[in-house]
């Protein structure tokens, strides 16, 4: 395995697609769609290759790369490397799992993009740019690069929502832009304060410094305890917008409903997870003490998310809204797991990140297939789908089952371990939280059964069932969901090292 530029290649391979697409005339619909799809394959293959190598015992640290990039002035009174920002990529088990998830969902979303109706060229160029941003976030070796890739996702998303979305697309694009803009602005503040005070933005070096390790003596200026709490809370808000944590969630509903479903697959499957990833990596990784103090609060936030999402999902009339609130609810489980502060909890949280990525992508894929045929997602105008679309109905039910945590599917593992963690540390809170799980079953079954059975709605009877092209991504996703559900070790192994590191940081 030639590894010097492996990660760069993996992250930037969609650029090739962007370059090629630039030369295709914009009327060539089929070529553009095919090219857009093919351009997502190199990252996927590289990611899967790395993953398989890793499972065979390959040392991921060999993949790290580092090149000089930027130095804010050479000041004689500062250490030589102070204020340098190298271009550094690095990957561990957790990041690798996220990379595989991202690359996989990008490929599947590219297939789901066959339903895009206009300006395919611009769409796919932005789509691939979005993929670069998402992949980069997970392998960034320093906070600066993390932020760079994080912001790269912002711009294409604005256009993808605002141009290819549904009726209120511009409003949704703006609320996406502003909420996430504020979130990332706060994140930037945290990054730059850390950078200015320590002289480095390397994640590993910061971790060492903030814990008072060997590098701590090289800090340029002290970080007072109050400042640390401030930074931690700022991080919580920054990633809380992205996740989203309940009072900061309204933008996400608009995006889920207004954006094209293929983009929602990525948004719900990956972009929301960046919030969780950041919270785990930086919130917990850099500020373990502060995280510990806030653990109960985070768990409470999690329970609120879980119940709030579940109850509101129950009263929605639009299936997309049901799924949007369901996403909020499921992100609560991530917070619950993290708030538990023990190995099971953190494992559950990370499992939920991956598992919900797959499940929500599946459900939105099915939404796009349905919408393509019946032009609505309103529950009262759907009904009796099972007659005309038996396969889609079946998959929908499978997706719902996975989402509500049926044993044998990935959702079960994550919810089970997350709650297992919380029951150990805060049984009362966990008991309240389990209510949410029951509610999940209620609202998902209500929505799905309403659509698949019941009286056949007008215009639904004669629609065609799923096509072969659409079948492939659905089967891949269901396959992954079941595989993780049956054989969770597949995920647990790569994550073990990361979780162990988190536990060490938390002091046990």
């Amino acid at each position, binding site marked *: 395995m030639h590894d010097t530029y492996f990660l760069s290649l993996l992250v930037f391979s969609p650029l090739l697609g962007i370059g090629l697409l630039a030369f295709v005339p914009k009327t060539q619909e089929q070529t553009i769609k095919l090219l857009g799809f093919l351009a997502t394959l190199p990252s996927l293959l590289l990611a899967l290759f790395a993953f398989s190598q890793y499972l065979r015992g390959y040392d991921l640290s060999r993949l790290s790369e580092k090149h000089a990039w930027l130095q804010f002035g050479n000041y004689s009174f500062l250490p030589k490397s102070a204020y340098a920002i190298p271009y550094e990529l690095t990957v561990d088990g957790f990041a690798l799992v996220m990379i595989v998830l991202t690359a996989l969902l990008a490929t599947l979303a590219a297939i789901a993009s066959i339903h895009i109706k206009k300006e395919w060229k611009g769409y796919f160029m932005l789509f691939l740019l979005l993929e670069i941003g998402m992949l980069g976030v997970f392998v960034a070796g320093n906070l600066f690069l993390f932020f760079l890739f994080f912001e790269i996702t912002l*711009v294409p998303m604005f256009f993808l929502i605002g141009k290819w979305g549904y009726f209120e697309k511009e409003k949704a694009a703006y609320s996406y832009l502003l909420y996430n803009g504020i979130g990332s602005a706060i994140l930037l503040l945290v990054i730059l304060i850390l950078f*200015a005070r320590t002289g480095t933005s390397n994640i590993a070096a910061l971790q060492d410094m903030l814990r008072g390790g060997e590098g701590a003596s090289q800090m340029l200026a002290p970080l007072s305890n109050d400042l640390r709490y401030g930074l931690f809370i700022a991080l919580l808000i920054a990633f809380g917008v992205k996740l989203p944590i309940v009072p900061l969630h309204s933008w996400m509903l608009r995006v889920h409903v207004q954006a094209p479903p293929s983009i929602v697959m990525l948004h719900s499957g990956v972009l929301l997870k960046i919030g969780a990833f950041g919270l785990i990596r930086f919130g917990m990784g850099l500020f373990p003490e502060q995280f510990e103090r806030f653990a109960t609060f985070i768990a409470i936030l999690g329970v609120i998310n879980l119940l709030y999402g579940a109850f509101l999902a129950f009263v929605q009339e639009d299936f997309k809204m049901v799924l949007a609130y369901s996403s909020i609810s499921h992100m609560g489980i991530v917070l619950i797991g993290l708030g538990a502060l023990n190995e099971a909890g953190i494992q559950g949280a990370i499992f939920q990140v991956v598992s919900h990525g797959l499940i929500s992508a599946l459900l939105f894929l099915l939404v796009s297939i349905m919408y393509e045929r019946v032009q609505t997602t309103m529950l009262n105008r759907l009904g009796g789908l099972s007659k005309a679309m038996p396969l889609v109905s079946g998959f929908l039910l499978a997706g719902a089952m996975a989402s509500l945590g049926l044993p044998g599917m990935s959702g079960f593992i994550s919810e089970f371990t997350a709650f297992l963690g919380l029951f150990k540390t805060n049984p009362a809170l966990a008991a309240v939280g389990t209510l949410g799980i029951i509610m999940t079953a209620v609202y998902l079954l209500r929505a799905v059964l309403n659509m698949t059975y019941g009286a056949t709605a007008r215009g639904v009877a004669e629609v065609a069932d799923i096509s072969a092209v659409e079948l492939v991504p659905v089967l891949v996703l269901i396959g992954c969901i079941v595989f993780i559900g049956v054989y969770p070790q597949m995920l647990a192994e790569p994550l073990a090292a990361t979780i162990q590191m988190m536990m060490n940081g938390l002091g046990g």
Partner: protein
Amino acid sequence: MTWETLLHYKWGVMAPEFIILGVATALSLIDLFMPNRQSRRPLGWFAVAGVIVAIVSLVGLLSVDTTSILHDTFRLDAFGKAFKLLLLGGAALVLLLSLDYCPKEGMKYEGEFYYLFLTALLGAMVMTSSGDLITLFVGLELLSISSYILAGLRKTNSLSNESAMKYVISGGISTAITLFGMSYVFGLTGSTNLKKIAMQLSTLQDSGHQYVLALAFLLMLVGLSFKLASAPFHMWAPDVYQGAPTPVTAFLSVVSKTAGFVIVLRLFISIFAAALSQGDEPSSMLLSMQDYIAFLAGATMVIGNTVALKQRNVKRLFAYSSIAHAGYLLVGFASLSFVMVDSMWFYLAAYLFMNLGAFAILQTVTDQSGSEDISQFAGLYRRNPLLAIMMGVFLLSLAGIPGTAGFIGKAHIFLGAFATEPAHYVLAAVMIATTVVSYVYYFGLFTQIFFRPAAHHESFSVPIGATIVIAVCAFGTLLFGMMPGWLYAFLDKFHHFSDFLR
């Protein structure tokens, strides 16, 4: 003074100034003897060539050590070299842009435009290198007076008249206030030479004198903040920007603003950093006045960005945007960190590329339609996709999105604000918050360009001058956004501008 004394000065260090002066004089003479009917465009190309020759001569001077001639009134130091490079680069681009400028009523006074433009540039350059209050002031006035005329160059256009009038009056007041402040400094020290002033002031212990000096500081700050168009002294800017011919607006928002920051930095750092302030722990006067600059910065960012939200006229929109950027630059100044001059230079360089690029497109689009309403950008993506994407790049950079020079510039300013002890969290927070506000109007232009349908569908071509400007600016914006290391390596050669007074 005899010929010997005159000849022994190293006049070579003034080569860029002499070239600009020579070209301006030649242009005015040629314009005088040229038949009326003949097109003045060749003069424009001549002016561009002159500026480029000046840049070449300046590059030749980069390796020359700090030199001062004419009894320390003219200094070629690292600061002067670096900022002159910005001024000349910006001027060359604006001149290229002006070649294609064609208002509805036609451009009757093209000849005047070119040589007044060069005299304004000359004023800015003299300011950059001056080591004396008198040269500083002469440079400032040369720049200002040339700009007043430039702003009113469309004599038959009432908005242009109004803009020149407003500019003269507010500019005159600001000059008077600045001069008033300078007179106190002169009164306290008995010298106009910056170096001597600094020496005198570093021994000033009398608290009464220190009050006078503080008053002088405030007067000069107020006077010069007119020039920077920083709030609350920004009122003239939107009207002047809107009324002035578009290339002049571009000049005001980039070159003239750079010159404004040049004078602020040179004056305040060389005079007030040396002066002692009163109090139990004597520190520098500049440090104790920090709060006023910080207030100015905060107000400028808030007013610039919020008022920009409701602008429909693109030139006014860019006026407020440029006010906002002055605010960001003032944050760099207010934090008084060791990266101050570096970060401001970088930001001004980034601003030069992104703003001039945006102005080139703005001029092309508004000339095409004859209207400056924001809706003229509607459907630009359909009419000229490449132009739309370029505008996208400039707007993203102005908004400070990573991958562009604007982001690195902002990050550097933040770094300065956080690296000092105590750190300027409030100021940085205001900057972050207002930056997010600025997303609304920058992305508002995006909605026009990419989402809205166009009123006309015919595509249009971009004239040659604007094409060069757009290409250069896009290249600069992206290159310095992705490979900023090159520019920083270049800055390192100047040793962080530590030779202000040496």
